[in-house]
């Protein structure tokens, strides 16, 4: 058993460039913005995924807004279609994370902050609802960045077969609503850390040294 996770993590806000010489030339996770998504948030997500997941992350060239996933009746974008599209393109990163600014849904739910293929290749995060408080006013930029990073971590972890966790202090806990998301820590509990390490082994993925 690993000791209790006491790391109090804060967001890495000013990341150095990835693809630096010390990293392998081919990252494990490729992050890509689809449509109107700022460069800053993309960089912050990439840096934090790299640090917290201990995986080399590459930033991929931006793509267009996923209009193919637009649903006329729901006036939202179908997350599963975006995942399918991401998974089929942009080889050869073992994992792909897309960032979109449009509102996402899956047929059974009114909306989702993010979505991922369990044990698959693709994950997606929507910035749309993370910018606002429940009552509609905007949150601070810091809070916004932190939320995006949390959803991104959570969704990418799903692609490594991690399921929701009922530990209070864990990023894999299910959150209900954006303010609940703010309560989540920026790290995995010791169980989920262990599952993650096991998944890296299973998928034959080389993680970065601590």
């Amino acid at each position, binding site marked *: 058993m690993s000791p209790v996770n006491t790391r109090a993590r804060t967001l890495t806000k000013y990341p150095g460039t990835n693809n630096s010489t010390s990293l392998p030339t081919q990252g494990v996770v490729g992050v890509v913005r689809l449509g109107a998504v700022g460069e800053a948030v993309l960089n912050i997500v990439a840096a934090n995924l790299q640090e917290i997941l201990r995986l080399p992350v590459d930033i991929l060239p931006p793509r267009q807004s996923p209009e193919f996933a637009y649903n006329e009746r729901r006036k939202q974008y179908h997350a599963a279609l975006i995942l399918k599209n991401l998974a089929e393109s942009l080889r050869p990163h073992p994992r792909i994370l897309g960032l979109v600014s449009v509102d996402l849904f*899956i*047929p059974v*739910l009114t909306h*989702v902050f993010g979505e*991922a293929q369990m044990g698959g290749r693709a994950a997606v995060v929507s910035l749309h609802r993370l910018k606002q408080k429940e009552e509609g006013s905007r949150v601070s930029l810091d809070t916004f960045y932190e939320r995006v990073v949390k959803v991104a971590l959570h969704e990418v972890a*799903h692609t490594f077969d991690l*399921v*929701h966790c009922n530990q209070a202090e864990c990023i894999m806990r*299910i959150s209900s609503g954006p303010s609940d998301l703010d309560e989540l820590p920026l790290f995995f509990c010791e169980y989920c850390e262990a599952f993650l390490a096991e998944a890296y082994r299973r998928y034959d993925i080389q993680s970065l040294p601590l």
Partner: protein
Amino acid sequence: MANKISILVVDDEMVIRESLHGWLKKSGYKVDTAEGGSAALAMLEKTPYDLLFLDIMMPVMSGIEVLEVVKEDYPQTLVVMITAYGSVETAVQAMKIGAVDYLMKPFDPDQLSLLTEKLMQQKRIMDENIFLREQIAEAIRFENLVGRSKAMQDLFAMIQDVAESDSPVLITGDTGTGKELVAKAIHAKSARHNGPFIAINCGAFPEHLLESELFGHERGAFTGAHRAKKGRLDLAHYGTLFLDEVGTVPLKMQVDLLRVLETKAFHRLGGTEEIEVDFRTIAATNRDLQQAIEKGEFRQDFFYRLNVISLHIPPLRQRRDDIPLLVEHFLDRYSRETNKDVDTISKEAMDLLRQYDWPGNVRELENAIERAVVICKKRRLGPEEFSFLAPHLSAAAETYSLEKTQIAHVRKVLNEFDWNISKAAQALEINRVTLHKKIKKYDLRPDRASN
């Protein structure tokens, strides 16, 4: 713990099925899907799902129809209805039938996660309750004495009262009603509960063997008695002696036993030493001892000695309301003992068991459940598993004639109450005179040889 929870999603819309399946998978649940009611019910026959998400609006079989079957056959499975805009009233109706909640499509993700979490907690509590209940049942050792009916509740109260005294008890009741269990319960609740409970089935031994079983013998008391042996009277010291089938004890031995009960002393066969014993007597019989006394087959003084307190256990056909409870009890036991996942019974099968007359009483029911579990290939017992009961069932049932039906019914009720006219008339909701007339008109007579 979450990993063990299994969920079935029933919806005719594939996109809903798949996206709910995907969402639930992320919480680590075991999830299956079905596109309609009959597929879902077929899956339930094989797998004990903890939770069902059930669409209300489906072609062929509506969600409400499926819900009714599920609540009837698999009451342990929690059901959440999936509704669409405009079917909220039906959802409310569903909750009256037994659905735990409903969600309107598309669901709010927060609502869905809160509800799922709440239900899983509830499920854990339910499982713990079942565990607790089993432990309690084990602890008081009432075992097969299961019953919610008035008759059984009265009996339980009697057992409690009787246990407090030290007087002899005579338990009467048909074969298989559980007389030994009642005797054990009395012993367990009495001040003698730390002493032994020694049972002997008096009908199981030929006369000379019964004698040596009860009294024991000294070495060389008879040919073949190579060493001394303690009898059951000896063994029962400080405890309870249970004389089962006491109606079969030969007259000569009734005299000997009466003497023991009066003096609390006896000697072994071939022995001279008087052995003092201290035990309580509980006797049981399925014979009408009054009748045996009249025939000179049973001694009146012995009867009075045994029958200080009398307890009667009603036959199962007079407490049919207890049948579902007993079925559940035995089903639980035999699915565990046979290591088979048979944990429910269909409504038709239960109806069939309730209708059957159970001449062998609780023991026959127990054997029937055990047999059905052994032959069953699904997780739910259906009427086909009880086909061995059928010949006894259908005799009266297959007629459309009003008069024949009435005759059969009156006969059945009379038999149920052992031809006690008052009780039968009460059950039939007619007066005694009318019943007498019917008996005469249809030439009905008692057909149960045992009474």
